[in-house]
C-alpha cells in the first residue's frame, strides 16, 4: 500500500458522477413524487402522499401492477427452467452442442426492438407464418398435437384448435386480443431471455466435479433424475439464485416489446411499469405520478437484490 494524493483525482470524478447520475436522481424522484410538479410548470405544491394514493387506488395503476407481476411471474420461471433444460441437454450431447448454443444465444444479441417487429410479422393474423401454419394444419397432425387431442380428457371436437378451424380459421390475433396480448409478450420475453440463462447454467454445469456423480452412483442414485436431484440441482444453487435475480430485474424493466407492439393495450392488459413511467412522465408530462411509479419501482428492485444477497449469505453454502 502506498500513500499518495493522486487518489483524489482518481476517485473524485467517479464519486461525483455516481452522486449526480445515480444517487441524486433517486432523491429527486422521491422529492417530486410528493408534489404536483410538471415539467414545464415553474411552480409546484407539496401534496403529500396523494400520488401514491392514486397509484394504489386507480384502476389504471392496479392494472399496471397486475401486468407487471404477470410478466415477471411468467417470464422468470419459464426462461429459467427452459434455460436450465437447454443447458443440461447441450451438456449431454455428443456433437452439435456449439451450433445450438449459438442459435439459442442469438436472441440475446440481436436488437430486441427489431426482433419485436419481426415477431409482430410472424404473429400477424393474415401475413404471419404462425397463423398460416395453424390454418394449413386443420384436420391434420398439427391439429392433433397442438389441439392437445392426445390428452385423454380433451374432446377432439371441442379443442381450441378444432373450433378455430370450424370458424373459418379464426385463430387468435395474438397481439391485438386482450386475452392473448400479455401471454404473447411474455412468450417473446422468454424467447429472448432463456439463451442468456442457458449460458450461465452451462458455465455452472462445467464447474460441477465429475466425482460427485460417481459418488452419487455409489450411493445408489442410478437414474438421471435422482442424480439431478442429488448433485446437479444443489450444486447449481448459486447459479440459479443469480439467474433468477438478474432475470427478474430485467423482466421488471421490460419496455421495448411493449412500446412497439401493444402500447400497453389492449385495454391496459400489457401496461407494465416501465411503459407507464414513459407514457405518464415523458409523453403526457405527468411528471409527479411517474416519479411515484419510479420510486415504487426502485424499491422493488433494491429489495429484490437485498433478498438475493441475504439468501446467498444464509443458505447457499456447500
Amino acid at each position, binding site marked *: 500500500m502506498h500513500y499518495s494524493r493522486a487518489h483524489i483525482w482518481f476517485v473524485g470524478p467517479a464519486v461525483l458522477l455516481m452522486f449526480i447520475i445515480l444517487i441524486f436522481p433517486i432523491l429527486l424522484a422521491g422529492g417530486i413524487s410528493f408534489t404536483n410538479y410538471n415539467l414545464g410548470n415553474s411552480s409546484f405544491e407539496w401534496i403529500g402522499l396523494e400520488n401514491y394514493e392514486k397509484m394504489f387506488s386507480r384502476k389504471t395503476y392496479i392494472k399496471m401492477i397486475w401486468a407487471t407481476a404477470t410478466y415477471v411471474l411468467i417470464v422468470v420461471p419459464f426462461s429459467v427452467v427452459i434455460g436450465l433444460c437447454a443447458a443440461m441437454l447441450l451438456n449431454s450431447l455428443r456433437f452439435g452442442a456449439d451450433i445450438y448454443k449459438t442459435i439459442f444465444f*442469438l436472441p440475446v444479441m440481436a436488437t430486441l426492438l427489431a426482433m419485436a417487429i419481426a415477431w409482430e410479422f410472424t404473429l400477424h393474423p393474415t401475413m404471419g407464418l404462425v397463423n398460416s401454419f395453424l390454418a394449413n394444419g386443420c384436420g391434420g397432425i398439427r391439429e392433433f398435437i397442438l389441439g392437445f387431442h392426445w390428452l385423454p380428457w380433451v374432446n377432439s371436437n371441442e379443442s381450441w384448435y378444432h373450433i378455430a378451424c370450424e370458424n373459418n380459421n379464426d385463430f387468435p390475433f395474438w397481439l391485438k386480443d386482450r386475452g392473448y396480448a400479455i401471454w404473447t409478450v411474455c412468450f417473446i420475453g422468454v424467447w429472448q431471455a432463456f439463451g442468456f440463462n442457458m449460458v450461465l447454467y452451462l458455465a455452472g454445469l462445467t464447474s460441477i466435479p465429475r466425482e460427485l456423480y460417481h459418488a452419487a452412483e455409489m450411493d445408489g442414485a442410478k437414474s438421471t433424475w435422482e442424480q439431478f436431484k442429488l448433485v446437479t440441482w444443489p450444486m447449481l444453487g448459486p447459479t440459479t439464485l443469480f439467474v433468477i435475480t438478474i432475470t427478474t430485474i430485467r423482466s421488471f424493466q421490460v419496455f421495448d416489446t411493449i412500446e412497439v407492439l401493444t402500447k400497453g393495450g389492449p385495454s391496459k392488459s400489457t401496461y407494465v411499469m416501465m411503459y407507464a413511467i414513459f407514457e405518464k*412522465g415523458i409523453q403526457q408530462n405527468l411528471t409527479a405520478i411517474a416519479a411515484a411509479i419510479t420510486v415504487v419501482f426502485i424499491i422493488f428492485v433494491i429489495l429484490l437484490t437485498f433478498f438475493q444477497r441475504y439468501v446467498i449469505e444464509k443458505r447457499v453454502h456447500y
Partner: protein
Amino acid sequence: MKNNQYIGEGWKHAILIIGALVVLLPFYMVVSISLKSQQEIQSISGGLIGAQEVQTFPVCTKMGMSEKTCTMKPYVYNYWFAFKKAPIARYLLNGLFVTVSIFLIQILIALPCAYALSKLRFYGREFIFSMVLFCLLIPVHAIALPLYVMLAKVGLVDTYAALIIPWTISVFGIFLMRQFFMTVPDELIDAARMDGMGEYSIVWKVMLPTAIPALLAFAIFSVVAHWNDYFWPRIVITGNRDLFTPPLGIREFRGGVDSDEFGPMMASIVTITVPLVVAFIIAQKRFIEGITMTGMK
C-alpha cells in the same frame, strides 16, 4: 445399451431442433420479407426468397422517379429503397459514435477509480467502495425519469450529450476492474514506482495492459448493451432525426405499418441488426464471455 444411447441422442436432437426452429423463426421472417415483393409477403408465398420477378414499383414512381429507375428485382428494390428513405448510414454511425464514446468515457473514469480502490490507501476508501456496491443496485433505466427532468432543466434534451451522459459512470465497470486489480501483485506496482513512474503513468501504462482481458469482456458487454438500447434514446431524442441511433431508426420505419411497404422496412431491420450479429458469430466465445460476465463475479 449402445443402441439405447443413440436413440436418446436422437430424441435430444429432435427436441433441440424444434427449439432452434422456434428461436430462428423471426430471423427467417425478417430476412425473407426483406427479399420478397409486397404481393408475395401478403399472400405468404414464394418461400424464403420469392420469385424475384423484375417489376416496376408504384411507391417509387410516385416519388417522381422515372419508370426505368423504378424497375428492378424485389430484393434490390427493398434494400435500395430502405437506404433511400432513411439515412441508415447516419444512424449506424450515430450508434457507433455513441457506443464508442460511452465505452471510452467509462474506462477513463472507472479505471483510475478501480486502481485507487484496490491499490491506494486513503481516508474514506471503504466508504467509497460501499457507495459503489450500493450503486450497483440501481438500474439506470429505472431512474430515467428524474434523469430526463435534470437533462431537460439544463437544456440537453435532443443532443449527443444526453445519449451519453447517463452511461458515463459504470459502477459495474469499477467493481469488475477493482476485483481484477486485487489479483495484480503489489510488487509490480512497487517496481514501477522504483523506476520513477508517477501514479498516472502506473494506471495507464502498467495497470491497463494487465487488464486487457477484463477490458475486452467489459467492452463487449458495454457496446452490446448500448447499441441495442432503445428505452433511453427514445426518451431523450424527441424529434431530431440527425441524432437517431439504430433502434430509433428501426422505430421510425415501423411508423406506418399498415400503409407502408414491408420489404424496405425489413431490409432496414436486417441492415441495422447485421453488424452486431455478424460480429457475434465471428467472435462467439468472447461475446458469450463478455455478456455473461455479470454472472461470473
